[in-house]
């Protein structure tokens, strides 16, 4: 699944470690989500949406939208 996490993080000038701290996950988790190697759980996706003030579906895009 594609996502806009890296773009949103860059807009706020946050490092992966900083974003990981804000989401209470490891930096590896943030990196794996950004590179599309790992799809987050629904609770984590909701936390990401809340952190960036955007609905989950505008951050995570399914294959047809990507």
């Amino acid at each position, binding site marked *: 699944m594609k996502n806009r996490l890296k773009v949103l993080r860059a807009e706020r000038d946050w490092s992966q470690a900083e974003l990981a701290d804000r989401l*209470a996950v490891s930096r*590896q988790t943030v990196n*794996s989500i950004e590179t599309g*190697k*790992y799809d987050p759980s629904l609770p984590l996706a909701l936390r990401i949406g809340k952190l960036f003030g955007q609905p989950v579906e505008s951050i995570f895009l399914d294959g047809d939208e990507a």
Partner: protein
Amino acid sequence: MSAKTAVSTTSLLSRPGLWVTAWFVTWLVARGVLESTMPTWLRVVAALAPTPIAAAALVTIVRGARELDELEKRIQLEALAIAFVLAVLLIMTLGLLELAITLNRDDWSYRHVWAMLPPMYFAGLVIARRRYS
């Protein structure tokens, strides 16, 4: 004992690595005792000595696993899945080989086979970690 010291001691005791190391050291001591001439009851005590340490290690490992973040949980699950299949394969193959040939018990007894299981877990961990890095 100050509050700070008490907290750091508690923190130390909750570390799985400490208990796994203690478990290994207890095993080494047990091996040493069992290689010497001792009464049977003492040999049995030595053989069982690592068990309570292993129980403490298990408790701290499970507690630690519950605190892992979701990706690390998945990595650990995949590592354990790989290790489990490899362990079953090893034991099954040794069982079949035992029917085919006479295995030398000096090389293929329980005391040798268990030591092959942790490397399987670490191999699984490397494979799983690589997939998400």
